């Protein structure tokens, strides 16, 4: 069965790019409607993995992450963060870390930096699906 990956990113061009890359690598993809609540679209279709752009000003990536980790039924879906700011940079990860500590959130299952290296992306995705695949089936 083909694994489904949900792509959440504000930029249309990046969504197009990621969709093409992932489909070419043998995955199915879905993207929630822009104005739609992410949780609502999950209820329609649960993916095997969510790729989330954390620096999305419009829909605030961090609050989506929080929702994903705290909504019962969906907290087991693995989430990989995509970000244009390096993990190591104090500016961003400091805040993110603080938020995670404040809200007691599970850390992300993977981290992909922009500009996106296709090989890195596929590696991260495959690695996560390998280890986490079993967990989702047990809930369903």
């Amino acid at each position, binding site marked *: 069965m083909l694994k489904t990956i949900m792509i959440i990113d504000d930029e249309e*061009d990046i969504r197009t*790019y*990621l969709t093409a*890359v992932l489909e070419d690598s043998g995955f199915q993809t879905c993207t929630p409607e822009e104005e739609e609540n992410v949780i609502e679209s999950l209820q329609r279709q649960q993916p095997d993995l969510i790729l989330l752009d954390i620096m999305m000003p419009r829909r605030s990536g961090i*609050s989506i992450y929080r929702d994903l980790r705290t909504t019962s039924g969906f907290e087991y879906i693995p989430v990989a963060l995509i970000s*244009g700011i390096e993990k190591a940079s104090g500016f961003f990860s400091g805040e993110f870390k603080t938020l995670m500590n404040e809200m007691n959130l599970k850390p992300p299952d993977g981290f992909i930096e922009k*500009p996106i290296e296709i090989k890195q992306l596929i590696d991260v995705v495959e690695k996560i699906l390998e280890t986490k695949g079993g967990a989702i089936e047990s809930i369903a």
Partner: protein
Amino acid sequence: MSLSLENLNVWIKEKLFDAVPMGIAVIDRDFNLVLANRAFEQMFGRWSGRKCYRVYKNRQEVCPQCKGAETFQDGIPRVNEEVGYNKNGMFTRYIKHTIPIVDNQGKIPYLLEMCTDITETDQIRREYQLLFDQVPCNILLIDRNFNIVKTNARIKEMLGDLEGGYCYQGLKGLDSRCMECTARQTFEDGQLHTGHHVWKTKDGRTVHLHVITVPLRLHDGSFDMVMEMAVDVTETIRLESGLNFAHTFLKTLIAASMDGIIAVDDQANISVFNSAARKLFGFEADQKIATDDIMGLLPKGVSDLADFSSRHLYLPDTTIKTTDGQKRPVRLVGSKLMMEEKSLGMALSIQDLSEIKNLQNEKLEAERLAAVGQTVAGLAHGIKNLITALEGGMYMLNTGFGKNNLGRIEKGIDMLTRNIDRIGLFVKAFLGFSRGREINAALSTPGDISREVVHMYASSAQNHGIKLSHEQVSEIEPAPIDYESMHECLTNLVGNAIDACIVSDNNTRLKVNVRVFEEDGVIIYEVTDNGCGMDYEVKKKVFTNFFTTKGLGGSGLGLLMTKKIIQEHGGFIEYESEPGQGTVFRIRLPRNRLPQPPVDEESITATASSQSQNLSNPWNGEERLESEENK
């Protein structure tokens, strides 16, 4: 006819008795007055047939220890001081000589008593003694051998009984005469001499005295005694030395102070102008300074302090002029010097704030740099997105060719084209931002700027059914603000507020209010809307990167630029927002952090002319673009 010797004897026998000014009486062994002269009668009144004790003393019986009785007994003449009552009943003192009259057999049938009234003399003597003892001065009489003949009560109290001893011993505890002996000098030349002496009291205290020595002359001008009058000046000396100390201390304090201290007396003469003050104003160390010179260099409040009834003046952030025409920032505190409702002048303390101002400027500079640092981080993110999109376009193109997928190829070209355009926009915006605009601060009326922005958006707001208002309650003094830049900030904020209302799904009447006011020396612009508000994440990101919620359209620099402009003015920008309820953006411009106004304070430069002259403004083209996007 002349008086012969025989006649003289008769006169003496007959007239002398009554002519003598002494009271003379004769009493018998029963104390009856048998004979008395006119003077006696004048002293004691009627005497005939009366007893002596009645006449002299108003007594009914013989006086105890009667001197007359004793003389009757032993025949020895006596002299006594007696007290009695005169013919008017007044108290009288008199000297009485009692002389026995002896007959041929040696018996004493009568006494002769002679009285001299010494009441007045006695009174004078008493007064003298009182003066001698009670005068607030130590008095002693010293003879030519430097023995103390007499001291007054004060000396007795202070030093004990010194009479008879040597003055140098009793007063100073010395074994020989003092070097500076005023008594010796007076004995030598008979003149008044003064000196300063130090005595030791009987309880070991040291006393300082100012001494005046005068000769105690007899009627023929000779003298064998001098009178020394010594005034205790110990306390005065102590006070004097205390005063000297206080004076020296104060002088040193004033001289050493790093703050300028100036004092002016009530005749408007300068009484204190310490070296720190000289440095502040640029006066030379020995230059003469007149009050008029200095009044022109001080801020206006000082002359008010001098003229009017106010007692204190506090100017925490003011300027003084120096002698070479420069301005110097200072803190000035002034006080009128009052003593019992009378003005004695005024004192000023001036603290140089140049150092602090420099530090403040450095802090502003550091804040500016920090803002730039944040910008760079945000920039990096924006560029990465662009690069990703471009790479995406290339991927689509390449894989499209590989799979012979025309749709993909078209998509790829589309992505490349679009994002290459965006790079252009991006770079231009960034260059404009990083080059920075120099703030052209000129005295502007804050209310004018906000009013103009509101006017600019009036029709747009109306078209969207948004109530846009401007609020200014009281006059705000002109301030050094870059009119154009602040206009841009307010345009940005008002534009955002209107957009927030447009996307809002509030059912209530949507409004945007722009309020301008001044509080505690801070000029404040408030832009309030009741539109969609910001949630937690938007709030966290609002200033810190190339942030826009307006999709691909905005370059995201608006708020960042606004923040930079406000920082250039030394101001602060803050906001409060609740999702679904609305947002307030507040620009705070403390007056004392605003950039220095141009040299000519009096004129308010025309804002239109400053706008048109800003030719080096890299934003000139982009500004039009921004405002189109904002609509």
